[in-house]
């Protein structure tokens, strides 16, 4: 389903956005910067609610200020009951309040109906979607691209690549505690609950890089559990997927060969997988194509060779409480390991 917005609607949304929340309107993690029809319908609903709320607030505030500031005669305490039973003012107040209440009910009903229609739109399940299984862990995202043919399933971590214009159905569960996946530009959030399977649909209608974050408190490093989403043109996506299906690149020089030796002979092998090597553990992120990712440690660090080395040596410097242990390696072993990992495109 290729949704296309008319220019006018988009412009109205953009203007509304700019008036509303200048700092948070153009980022790659903003709910008011939608990159797909689903997020756009929510953003438009948001704008509607906010506009109505602002008007209501201004009116009520104005009436309140008027009520407080209006000039009236100073009375004696004997006026207490008199004021309370003054027919004329009571009748007037009753009328005004009745109308105000009726108007409130009408406005609320309208808002509720608008929400109903948006939710109805959001809950439709597309039939030709790309299925991705996402499993939450403390503190990383396990991603597996589903396919009827098991040999064509791509496993990666902390990143999603999705084709523009094609709906993506995420099947969400968790291995440990409750997490929540939230990519504000693309859709609302959905919890990853152990023992449950939830689904969420993503649909991007323009390419871009979007940042998501775990949105349910999950422990010590809940703050640094980011998920990057890359919406790409279909051809680029297919190429990426094809590359991911390959085994890991063989080391191309001595340093990288030594790095692979270090990988297979130290602590890494007990938790990680690199397809095509001896490493086949599934407790930690799949590293087969580690170098194709832009970040490491669930978005905590940019993916550079020196960051890799620092991360391996002392992960708790960046993410205290993360499950990965500190690994003591000799400096040249560490450098070789980092060089090897940096070659795994």
């Amino acid at each position: 389903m290729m949704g296309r917005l008319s220019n006018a609607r988009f412009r109205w949304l953009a203007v509304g956005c700019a008036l509303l929340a200048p700092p948070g309107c153009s980022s790659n993690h903003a709910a008011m910067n939608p990159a797909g029809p689903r997020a756009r319908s929510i953003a438009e609903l948001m704008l509607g609610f906010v506009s109505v709320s602002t008007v209501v607030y201004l009116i009520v505030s104005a009436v309140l200020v008027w009520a407080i500031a209006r000039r009236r005669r100073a009375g004696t305490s004997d006026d207490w009951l008199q004021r309370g039973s003054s027919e004329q003012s009571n009748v007037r107040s009753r009328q005004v309040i009745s109308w105000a209440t009726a108007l409130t009910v009408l406005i609320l009903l309208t808002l509720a109906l608008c929400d109903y229609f948006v939710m109805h739109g959001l809950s439709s399940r597309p039939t030709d979607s790309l299925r991705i299984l996402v499993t939450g862990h403390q503190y990383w995202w396990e991603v597996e691209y589903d396919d009827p043919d098991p040999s064509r399933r791509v496993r990666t971590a902390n990143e999603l690549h999705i084709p523009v214009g094609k709906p993506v159905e995420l099947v969400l569960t968790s291995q440990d505690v409750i997490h929540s996946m939230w990519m504000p530009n693309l859709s609302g959030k959905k919890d990853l609950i152990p023992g449950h399977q939830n689904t969420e649909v993503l649909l991007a209608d323009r390419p871009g890089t979007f940042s998501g974050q775990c949105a349910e408190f999950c422990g010590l490093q809940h703050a640094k559990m980011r998920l990057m989403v890359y919406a790409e043109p279909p051809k680029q996506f297919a190429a990426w997927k094809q590359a991911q299906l390959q085994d890991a690149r063989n080391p191309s020089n001595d340093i990288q060969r030594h790095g692979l030796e270090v990988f297979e002979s130290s602590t890494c092998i007990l938790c990680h997988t690199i397809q095509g090597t001896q490493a086949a553990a599934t407790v930690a992120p799949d590293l087969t194509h580690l170098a194709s990712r832009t970040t490491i440690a669930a978005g905590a660090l940019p993916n550079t060779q020196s960051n890799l080395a620092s991360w391996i040596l002392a992960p708790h410097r960046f993410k205290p409480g993360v499950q990965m242990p500190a690994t003591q390696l000799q400096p040249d072993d560490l450098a070789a390991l980092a060089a090897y990992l940096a070659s795994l495109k």
Partner: protein
Amino acid sequence: MSSRFLELAVVALIALTLLGCERESRRFSDSPATPRGVQTIRQSELQPGSSIPTSGPPSPYDDNAYAVSQGKQLFEWFNCKGCHADGGGSIGPALMDEKWIYGSAPANIYATIVEGRPNGMPSFRDKIPPQQVWQLVAYVRSLSGQLRKDVEPSRADHLFTRKSESSSPKSAPVSSSAPRDTQ
């Protein structure tokens, strides 16, 4: 009388403080002392004459609930369950009973994990960092109830296979260094 009571209360409070503090501390990058050099860690508990106890570093995490729960997590992740099941043993010996083939002192357990043992226990030296080995040591000791009840982990979020460690009674270790086929 009331001053004695007050003193007792203060002492109890301090004890609670120290115990509580250690139980709850979370040390993420620790470098506890590891057995090395000339230390009397014996594979067999049988000794002629009078027994000289094992000397080696004490378990740094016997009072630390976080470390023990990490050990429990690692026990699953590193597939100790593949041979030892959930403590009851299958192709590997049971860990929750009172029989300790290679010694029940923390340093002995450390050595068992790191060096490996005959008949199938792999050597995890350089494959598991020392801090995590100590976490596993503490957890293994909790399987037979050697730790304080408030430190031992409770049930896990998986199939309920046995009483939780904190509900298990303490079984006093008995060495069984006799050859396996007579057990």
